């Protein structure tokens, strides 16, 4: 049973020219921020367009807030939709774009203005109301697209790669905004992306969508794992998820400013130095190849030096992954040759070091 306000997708199958989406089963709780993660072209847009009602599924059902909407046209589903490249109406100004859905609902002019003003304030676009979409930057356009979708107070908000078309800096800012808006409005959100960090930073839970070629030209998409972000990267369900996510060290922590210009991130009892702009609760990652490993205490200029015990060695031929429990666990990458030279084995006490600039924060 789907909870009131949540979304329940059961046995959904969609057939489009050359593409088949099979057996999608998802339960999204009321107010949850749910991310679908998959490589580009894995039918993520098709899935969203089906949920919103633009494609009719061949089989399965979609229940929204306890109401079966499988055969209801998009205009009566009450689902907000934001495309990757915004799809703003070019013949209307920002105010006209935002008011579009409200006018269709036959609202009074004063009510429309009030609601449009409120949502514009929330998204910080009040000063743009009389501009045409083509005069706005990418980030501004995406805020307008969000405002237009949110102003109708949808039961569910669908975001199709909402940050991919933006430059790095804008993307980071807007990613934070998405989190903030979700906290403020509590709208159940289904966000699709190919960006793992985006998924981890925003998602309460993540579903990984995999695409395969079958019979040469036909492509098939299916969900291969659903879980909270930590589950996905700590325990990938299969080789595809592991490869897609990559082997990496990801931590959740809190960043504080320091005298030295860098930030200290406290996590699981240790403090890690990082070069970053962000503060407060965040995620940090360190690539396994950036971590130096040694049996002796390291004399290095690296800001981050820890001592731990080897709990796992995974030999991959030319290279090997060594898991060192500080705690937390750090996965380090070394060559097969160093593994043999250092005679590393499980249970051994070792030292690890990495530079503050090797810590990526998101």
């Amino acid at each position: 049973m789907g909870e009131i306000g949540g979304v329940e997708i059961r046995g959904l199958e969609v057939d489009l020219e050359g593409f088949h989406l099979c057996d999608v089963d998802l339960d999204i709780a009321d107010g949850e921020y749910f991310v679908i993660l998959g490589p580009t072209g894995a039918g993520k847009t098709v899935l969203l367009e089906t949920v919103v009602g633009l494609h009719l599924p061949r089989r399965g059902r979609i229940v929204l807030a306890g109401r079966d909407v499988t055969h209801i046209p998009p205009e009566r589903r009450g689902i907000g939709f934001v495309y990757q490249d915004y799809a703003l109406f070019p013949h209307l100004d920002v105010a006209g774009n935002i008011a579009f859905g409200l006018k269709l609902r036959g609202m009074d002019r004063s009510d429309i203005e009030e609601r449009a003003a409120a949502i514009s304030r929330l998204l910080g676009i009040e000063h743009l109301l009389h501009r045409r979409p083509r005069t706005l930057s990418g980030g501004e356009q995406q805020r307008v697209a969000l405002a237009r979708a949110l102003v109708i107070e949808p039961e569910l908000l669908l975001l199709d790669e909402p940050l991919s078309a933006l430059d790095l800096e804008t993307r980071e800012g807007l990613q934070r905004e998405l989190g903030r808006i979700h906290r403020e409005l509590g709208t159940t959100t289904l966000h699709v992306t190919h960006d793992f960090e985006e998924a981890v930073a925003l998602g309460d839970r993540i579903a990984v969508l995999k695409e395969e070629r079958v019979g040469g030209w036909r492509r098939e998409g299916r969900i291969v794992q659903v879980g909270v972000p930590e589950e996905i990267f700590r325990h990938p369900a299969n080789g595809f998820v592991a490869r897609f996510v990559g082997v990496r060290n990801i931590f959740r922590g809190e960043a504080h400013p320091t005298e030295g210009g860098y930030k200290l991130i406290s996590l699981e009892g240790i403090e890690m130095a990082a070069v970053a702009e962000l503060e407060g609760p965040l995620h940090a990652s360190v690539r396994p190849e950036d971590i130096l490993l040694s049996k002796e205490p390291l004399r290095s200029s690296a800001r981050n030096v820890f001592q731990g015990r080897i709990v796992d060695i995974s030999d991959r031929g030319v290279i090997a992954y060594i898991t060192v429990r500080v705690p937390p666990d750090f996965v380090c990458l070394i060559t097969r040759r160093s593994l043999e030279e250092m005679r590393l084995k499980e249970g051994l006490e070792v030292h690890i070091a990495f530079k503050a600039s090797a810590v990526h924060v998101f």
Partner: protein
Amino acid sequence: MRALFANKMRVLFAILGSLLILFVAWPLARTVISSSPAVLWRTLLDEEVRGSIFLTFYASLLATGLAFLCGIPLAYLLARVDFPGKQLVEGIIDVPIIVPHSAAGIALLMVLGRRTLLGKAFGLVGLKFVSATPGIVAAMLFVSLSFLVDSAREGFEAVDPRLEKVARTLGASPWRAFWAVSFPLAWRSILSGMVLMWARGLSEFGAVVILAYHPMVAPILLYERFESFGLRYARPIATLVILTCLAIFAALRLIAGGE
């Protein structure tokens, strides 16, 4: 301007291009200049001339209206939907451009003539095509509808289909999404197609002359005066028709050009 003569190749291109422009502009200008205002005024007072010019504009406008009614939906479907036989439909729409227009007139006569099934059926509701205004409209519609349909289709193709999808998610029915999003965004192309079609209809001679010599549209009147009385009598009418068309064409371009 300097970029036009930047190198020898461009100078040559400019000269060759100018020949073509001159070829169009010179005869038109010559015709317009050759008639004195007094003669033009006398021609304008000629009941038959005025009636004929009015009939031409009116019939072509009617043809454009009919093409709008059925052609805009068709153009939209062609732009948005892939269906079996789509290329055939597109081909049929463009056939009138390549068929000699007198042949088109004959073809229409085969279907709309007095003794044909359709001709009789329309006759019952008092609509006759041969030697009547509906025949003129039918001939104009046949030879010029391609311009409107093609231009409108290009207009709709240029509208991102996702704009309509977004409109649907915001609560618009397919109708509302069409009228509030696709139609206004394709409007310039539609309007320019209508102007083109209307202008093409005005100038139609071949198809009209076969279906309805009478009542006389301007090109036929012009031809008749030329045949019966010679150049001196045909020239002022030609001037009048050219000037009127230019004025309307310029006005419409202005409307379509400004946002």
